[in-house]
């Protein structure tokens, strides 16, 4: 094993760095591969690099659980699972070569399979975390069911590093489906949404569904029989399976449009919305990518009116990336941040100026 993949426990030195930061009241910018650095607000702080803390701690495929240090590269984890016919069902995006497991947990973004399989947080079983008081603690564990105490592990997923330094995570994994087939079907967006709603209520084994304005793209996963019969029923043309990775990693042509990229997260079965810009639907319509130069307030209002929220994926000074929170909710989130990170060390302002 070379230095990049050798297993190494650097928890002690990470903890020392946090203790020093507490002493100096020095804010920290927690980083892994920095592949998602531009998501969220910029952070001023001393860099805390997790990448020396790497390696798979335990992996027993028959338990469907892997425990991994957060500085491990996401590709390395995925390769280890692949070698055993298993996968991270939430299909997390990398957004760059050096993406780490810690970045996946901290940002909580999930890929095309999310509506059917679940999100990153859904697969988190346990974490170890260095707290705002510099303690290295363990929450949750390696078991599927665990309701002892508060579920801090799932809270940490998607917290953008604002509540602690996640050093280790235990994840539920699943066997890869026996069969997978992807199809392209030329129907308009409106009809596609109706079709999808119909298939969702039947036994169609969907595991991805997107629409680019011209065609509907679906992936079917399951046993040989169910996939074959669903393919017959849906029709259309075969689509290379790497389409989904290109969609997940924002490598489709759609994403090269120079206008800012917005992510609209919407309720299931939201109809076609009249959005100012070009739209690429994922998650059967529950996640819509929008290229638009319209004002943030306009886009947020449109998302809100449909029962969802909007996040800007293109960073620009003066524009808040995350959808504003209701004042009461923000107050409790701030209180939570104050309790868990009393010195305000971890990624201050990454989510909101107040957190």
């Amino acid at each position, binding site marked *: 094993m070379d230095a990049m993949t050798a297993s190494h426990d650097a928890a002690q030195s990470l903890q020392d760095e946090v203790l020093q930061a507490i002493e100096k009241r020095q804010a920290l910018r927690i980083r892994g591969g920095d592949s998602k650095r531009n998501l969220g607000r910029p952070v001023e702080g001393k860099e805390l690099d997790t990448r020396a803390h790497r390696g798979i701690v335990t992996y027993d495929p028959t338990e469907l659980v892997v425990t991994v240090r957060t500085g491990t590269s996401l590709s390395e984890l995925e390769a280890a699972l692949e070698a055993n016919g298993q996968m991270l069902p939430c299909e997390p995006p990398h957004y760059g070569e050096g993406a780490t497991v810690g970045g996946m947990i901290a940002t909580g973004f999930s890929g095309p399979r999310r509506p059917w399989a679940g999100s990153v947080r859904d697969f988190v079983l346990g974490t170890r975390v260095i707290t705002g008081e510099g*303690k290295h603690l363990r929450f949750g564990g390696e078991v*599927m069911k665990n*309701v002892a105490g508060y*579920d801090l592990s799932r809270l940490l997923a998607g917290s953008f590093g604002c509540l602690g330094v996640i050093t280790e995570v235990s994840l539920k994994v699943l066997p890869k489906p026996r069969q997978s087939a992807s199809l392209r079907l030329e129907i308009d967006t409106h009809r596609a949404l109706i079709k999808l709603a119909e298939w969702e*209520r*039947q036994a169609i084994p969907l595991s991805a569904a997107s629409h680019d304005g011209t065609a509907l793209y679906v992936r079917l996963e399951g046993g040989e029989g169910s996939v074959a019969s669903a393919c017959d029923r849906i029709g259309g043309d075969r689509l290379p399976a790497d389409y989904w990775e290109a969609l997940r990693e924002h490598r489709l042509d759609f994403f090269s449009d120079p206008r800012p990229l917005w992510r609209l997260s919407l309720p299931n079965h939201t109809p076609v919305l009249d959005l100012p810009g070009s739209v690429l639907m994922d998650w059967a319509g529950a996640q819509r990518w929008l290229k638009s130069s319209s004002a943030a307030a306009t886009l947020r209002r449109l998302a809100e009116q449909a029962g969802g929220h909007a996040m800007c994926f293109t960073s620009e000074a003066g524009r808040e990336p995350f959808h504003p929170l209701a004042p*009461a909710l923000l107050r*409790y*989130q701030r209180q939570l941040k104050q309790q*868990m990170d009393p010195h305000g060390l971890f990624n201050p302002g990454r989510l909101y100026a107040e957190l």
Partner: protein
Amino acid sequence: MNILYDERVDGVLPRVDKTRLIASLHEALPGLLVLHEGEDLKPYECDGLSAYSTTPMAVVLPDTVEQVQTIMRLCHAQNVPVVARGAGTGLSGGALPLEQGILLVMARFNKILELDPDARRARVQPGVRNLAISQAASPYGLYYAPDPSSQIACSIGGNVAENAGGVHCLKYGLTVHNILKVDIVTIEGERLTLGSEALDSPGFDLLALFTGSEGLLGVVVEVTVKLLPKPQTAKVVMASFDNIEKAGRAVGDIIAAGIIPGGLEMMDNLSIRAAEDFIHAGYPVDAEAILLCELDGVESDVHADCDRVRQVLEKAGATEIRLARDEAERQRFWAGRKNAFPAVGRISPDYYCMDGTIPRRALPGVLRGIEELSRQYSLRVANVFHAGDGNMHPLILFDANQPGELERAEELGAKILDLCVEVGGSITGEHGVGREKINSMCTQFKPDELTMFHAVKKAFDEKGLLNPGKNVPTLHRCAEFGGMHVHHGKLPFPELERF
């Protein structure tokens, strides 16, 4: 160590002026149903953990969210502890009242507000029964997946508070995986929406934090759940084993073959015989263990998986393998398992149900440990096991009329939970900590971890008025408890003074 609230170790509770409280409730909410006298309070003294009861100072039964908000504001202002209660089916004493507090009963919130079959979600009030959601969704070919065994009676608000599970968790997840949005009222009377109808929400994931928080952070006033399409078909394979360890290994083999069963349950000989006597499910009474493996989904896939499972089970040394011939037989196979608790109740005056979880590979060792403890305490233990997700339900058989037997059963139970923690498991998989397992929390978590839990609580309820004494023990309680259970000659919590 008695589990009823003990101010000496659980913290001093505020003194409540009952007359003033009742008067101000009547004044603020003339239409509110308030019970505060003798016999009226009787039905609310305990939940599903009936060995323990406490008479609450008063019971309030609101039926609007505004009433809940007013009650909470009033209690916050007057420093009145509040214990919320749904259907009262919880097994860990999570809704056990306090003499110095009110019991907030949410049972009248029993309406399904909206069911959208195309969006596959339902918005319901917290007092709606778990099964009622699936029944309402059934005409559309949909259902709500988590199915705790109390599902005909338990309410969805309680399910959220406890992060309830059931027999299908391995494939379909727990409550936290099957809800989109929860509206809560905080102790300050603030209504908050956690989550959304979309698949995610901005900011910290308070929905994940709130699920399973046992009424310590807020009170659930509305829940939006996901609905799933009903599986086209379901088949059950029953396999018998002459050795329980072989059955345990077979579970791992099924998973290793890439199969995720809808349900995968194990029963030991004592539970098999008890269930067979009661239900006549057709169980093999001579088997040391049986596995029930349910495969659900699309017809052709289920058929193929049944063949695979059969091969795996043969290789694993099953002495008999039976596929339920028809739906009636499938229902019978399940009826035996689902009635295992009452079945055991017929062969013993009382039983005490445990809820530990373990990594599956630890099963043989833990079962041997339980057998050893069972001998040591001279109490029989029947083992029922959600084998797929590692959740054990050892049932300790005892007779409460025999002096000291309940205490012995509880001590044996705590020892079993210690075993679960030792092998990397948890003291509770789905029943919650409540009051019942408050001492065992001291085994699973270190003082700093408990301190972090208390910090989280403070963010939502600084005065500590919501369900005090449940879920997370004080460090003083752990110190006292640790003093009674000295491990390896060393006292845990050496930094704390002893009382």
